[in-house]
């Protein structure tokens, strides 16, 4: 039957034709099929009037053309007609730009970021230590009961305008007063204020004078000073040393006379070694203590000063709000950018076959 309907491929059709020539049954069936088809052809329908498109269809065509014109096309005119969206986007951009580049905002950033700047300056004045012995610098201190030994430390925080020359100025001061740099750190983070942290040793007598000079380097944000009283410690040390030396002498004396058993001698020698060790230790301690007394330690923090303008409470709040808004916008943009490519990738991977399937399904219906 497929052969009769022209549905077979040429090769199959040829095969079929060959078979038909021989097979009686198939010939009969073919004849039957053809007869039926001929009979069915007897049912004809009238021809409809040909010619122009009927009015209904013309209307439909016109409607579609109109509909197409109304549909917004993705061109510049479309953008212009959506002025609201454009305006909104512009506002957002302006917010972000103003916030980022306003100097007052930068100062706010800095003062929040800077842990070294205290809110209220602290100043504790200490009386000059009475009667520090003249021979302090570089020498061993021999205390007398009237003197007081202090280990002096000072903390100083500055905000400096002229940050570039700070280092040079500081070196000059240190040299001037015969000080030493214990430790120095310089931080220059991107987009933020630079900071300098230094631990400086200055001869105790010169400390006040040096501080005066250092304060001139910038605006003092905070200051504190401390004197640790180590007189007693020093006295104890000295007394201990004296005792140890005395013990040493006696033991040496005992060894010299060498009376007694060998084991006793050995014991004495051992004791002597011990004592000598203790003497060395105590001498080292005393030396360190003297160093600390003779050299005061200044911990200095200098922060660069960005600010030109002073913000009032209201202005600061407004800028802070702007800053928050800009943060949110930037965060959203970042999240979108970070997630964007992944979403696009999945849309392509999953969406394309899904769309094709859907189209196919629609057609099949």
């Amino acid at each position, binding site marked *: *039957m*497929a052969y009769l*309907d022209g*549905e077979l491929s040429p090769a199959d059709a040829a095969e079929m034709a060959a078979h038909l020539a021989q097979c009686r049954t198939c010939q009969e069936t073919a004849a*039957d*099929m053809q*007869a*039926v*088809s001929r*009979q*069915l*052809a*007897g*049912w*004809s*329908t*009238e*021809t*409809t009037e*040909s010619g122009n*498109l*009927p009015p*209904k*269809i013309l209307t*439909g*065509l016109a409607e*579609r053309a109109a509909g197409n014109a109304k549909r917004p096309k993705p061109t510049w005119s479309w953008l212009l007609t959506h002025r609201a969206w454009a305006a909104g986007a512009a506002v957002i951009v302006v917010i972000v730009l103003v916030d980022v580049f306003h100097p007052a905002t930068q100062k706010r950033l800095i003062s929040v970021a800077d842990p070294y700047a205290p809110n209220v300056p602290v100043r504790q004045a200490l009386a000059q230590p009475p009667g520090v012995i003249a021979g302090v610098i570089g020498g061993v201190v021999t205390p007398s009961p009237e003197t007081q030994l202090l280990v002096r430390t000072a903390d100083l925080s500055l905000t400096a305008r002229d940050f570039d020359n700070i280092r040079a100025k500081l070196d000059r001061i240190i040299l001037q007063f015969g000080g030493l740099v214990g430790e120095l750190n310089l931080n220059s983070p991107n987009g933020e204020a630079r900071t300098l942290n230094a631990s400086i040793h200055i001869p105790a007598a010169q400390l006040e004078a040096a501080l005066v000079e250092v304060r001139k380097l910038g605006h003092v944000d905070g200051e504190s000073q401390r004197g640790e009283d180590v007189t007693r410690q020093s006295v104890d040390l000295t007394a201990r040393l004296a005792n140890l030396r005395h013990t040493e002498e006696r033991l040496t004396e005992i060894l010299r006379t060498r009376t007694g058993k060998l084991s006793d001698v050995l014991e004495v020698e051992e004791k002597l070694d011990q004592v000598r060790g203790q003497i060395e230790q105590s001498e080292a301690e005393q030396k360190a203590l003297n160093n600390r007394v003779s050299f005061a330690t200044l911990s200095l923090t200098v922060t660069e000063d960005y600010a030109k303008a002073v913000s009032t409470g209201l202005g600061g709040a407004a800028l802070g709000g702007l800053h928050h808004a800009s943060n949110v916008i930037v965060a959203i943009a970042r999240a979108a950018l970070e997630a964007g490519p992944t979403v696009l990738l999945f849309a392509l991977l999953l969406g394309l076959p899904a769309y094709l399937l859907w189209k196919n399904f629609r*057609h*099949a219906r």
Partner: protein
Amino acid sequence: MEELFARYRQPLYSFFRRRLSNDARADDLMQETFLAVIRAKVRYEPRALVRTYLYAIALKQVSAERRWQARRPAAAPLTEQAASAHEDDAAIWIKQAISKLEEMDREILLLREYDDLSYSEIAKLLHLPLNTVRSRLFRARLALKNLLAGDRCQ
């Protein structure tokens, strides 16, 4: 669009005429089919698919029309209608014979014999496997052979 119309106007008209009892609707439905194509947002696809597309719409129209007519009791009975001058005895005889076939077989036969659709087109339109189309067509033709031959008025 004009080309489409010119080419398929008559075939679609005949399509509707053969399947509906109400002749007047055939012309309307034929125009509706073209309108549906216009309104659909689908772009014109290559020629081979347009045929299937058109006939698919036409089939839907027919079933919609039948459902609608079934709800209206005043409609003329399906099998008999006022014999129009155009229809001769042969046509009536054939129509009767065909109406005795099972609906699916009938449709397959009509699509093959009168609308000249290929087996695969029929299969796609009616959502049937190709082999089913073949076997049912064969069966329908065999049945028709008997229906058309037997009880023939002289």
